[in-house]
């Protein structure tokens, strides 16, 4: 009785979770002019229509550039920070950890308006630069957390063994510790790219007329029309996100596999 009710309830929740995903993907193949589910017939014309839209492709390009730059900048800032926070004897370590995670605890809309009025006050008129700063700010805690956790899992005997074998500090970092956490660094990069690519709230506030990331383009398009082309765009984004997630999982499993073997 209990087990059955539980299974029933869980099934209901599973349907609730998957419903939008299924409806959107299905609706993108409909031959009708309006969105409907189950789809009527099967066509790829909405995907063709999507590929013919220069504004969507430009927005996609902007999002990809922004995501790559944000992930790279966050890694450049976050990896040294993760290395610095490793040292147990670091004065004020707990406080510094809290500060490092601060952008995660702030509501995104507050970060967005804070940056918006700040750029206005300092007269920063570079939408891509402004977006890049905001996106970097939002993703850098993920880098510190993921890479920091990989460093925590790292056997301290690893760098000692390297040292006893004659390696200097730079060689230890470049040949031993960093390569050992490389899968986690790659996973962090992929995750940061997706997070940046998905970010809407911040981008809605900071986008300029000529610099429009894809989610903002979708956002403005929805206010004006709802048609199956948007479903096609949505389904494409879902597939892209899934690919990145699978990649992340592989990398992280690889990382854990390496250490499961060493332990």
């Amino acid at each position, binding site marked *: 009785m209990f087990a059955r009710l539980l299974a029933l309830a869980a099934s209901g929740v599973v349907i609730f979770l998957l419903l939008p995903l299924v409806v959107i993907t299905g609706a993108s193949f409909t031959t009708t002019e309006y969105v409907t589910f189950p789809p009527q017939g099967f066509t790829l014309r909405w995907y063709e229509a999507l590929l013919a839209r220069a504004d969507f492709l430009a927005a996609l390009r902007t999002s990809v550039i922004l995501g790559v730059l944000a992930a790279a900048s966050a890694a450049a800032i976050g990896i040294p920070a993760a290395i*610095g926070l490793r040292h147990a004897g670091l004065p004020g370590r707990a406080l510094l950890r809290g500060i490092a995670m601060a952008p995660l605890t702030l509501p995104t809309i507050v970060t967005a308006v804070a940056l918006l009025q700040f750029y206005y006050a300092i007269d920063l008129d570079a939408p891509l630069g402004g977006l890049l700063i905001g996106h970097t700010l939002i993703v850098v805690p993920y880098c510190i957390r993921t890479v920091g956790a990989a460093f925590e899992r790292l056997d301290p005997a690893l760098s000692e063994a390297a040292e006893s074998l004659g390696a200097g500090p730079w060689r230890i970092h470049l040949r031993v510790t960093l390569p050992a956490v490389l899968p986690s660094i790659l996973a962090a990069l992929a995750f940061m790219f997706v997070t940046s690519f998905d970010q809407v709230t911040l981008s809605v506030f900071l986008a300029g007329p000529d610099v429009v990331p894809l989610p903002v383009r979708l956002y403005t398009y929805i206010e004006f029309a709802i048609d199956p082309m948007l479903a096609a765009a*949505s389904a494409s984004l879902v597939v892209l996100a899934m690919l990145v997630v699978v990649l992340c999982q592989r990398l992280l499993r690889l990382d854990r596999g390496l250490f499961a073997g060493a332990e």
Partner: protein
Amino acid sequence: MRHLPLAPLLVFYGCFLLAPGLALAVLSLRPFSPTLVVGEGWTGANYLTALADPFYLGLLAGTIFLGVAVTLVTLLLGYPLALATVRAGPRLKSFLLVVALSPLLINLVVRSYAWIVLLGDHGLINAWLRAMSLPAVPLDANMAAVGIGLAHVTLPLMVLSLVAVMERIDPRLLEAAASLGAGEWRILARVHVHLAMPGIATGSLLVFCTAISAFITPRLLGGNRISTISTVIYEKFTFSLNWPLGAALAMVLLGLTLVVTALHDRLFRAR
């Protein structure tokens, strides 16, 4: 010297987190000027408006109510799913975890779009209801639509928090309770919920904070009819250009988030 690797991060945060934050706080204390956007001098009027004006007080109450409602709904939906997940075999378990995380795969705009398609007056749910000759339910651009959308957005946070804690509950404790003659419902209510409390608390905190500060979902699913603090902040910064009041509202939202987080830490971290 040992802090050197942290220098880039601290400089970056100083320039683009601390400085904008302080500037926002300063802005919230400036008077509004219809011609200049930001006037000269200092005033507390924006906070007085944000916290005492009946419209904004109602807005604050409505946003908190929305946050509480979404938290309760996700708890009600998340608990059975999390329980089923930890009790499942390895294959079903990874399937359920992927499903629980699947909303995170979909862009917020896309998710909102899907719910517009499903919930609107001419949406699919009402079309399906009509096809079954059932009465239509009003889900177009109202609080219920926003709540459903937000529940979908935040459910992964709740399920993950619950699963993380439930995984650590020693099954022998539940077996012991069963051996003492307790039925499954009684074990759930008296033992399991109690043991899962840290997960319930963390999940509720995450969901509540996300729900009260969400912007895209209320904006798209609420149409122009539903206002939350976030949508009003957006209006103050884009349409009415009353930046000082918008800044004060943002500070109130930040304060609310920090108070709830501190309360959670006080109640649950100490244990």
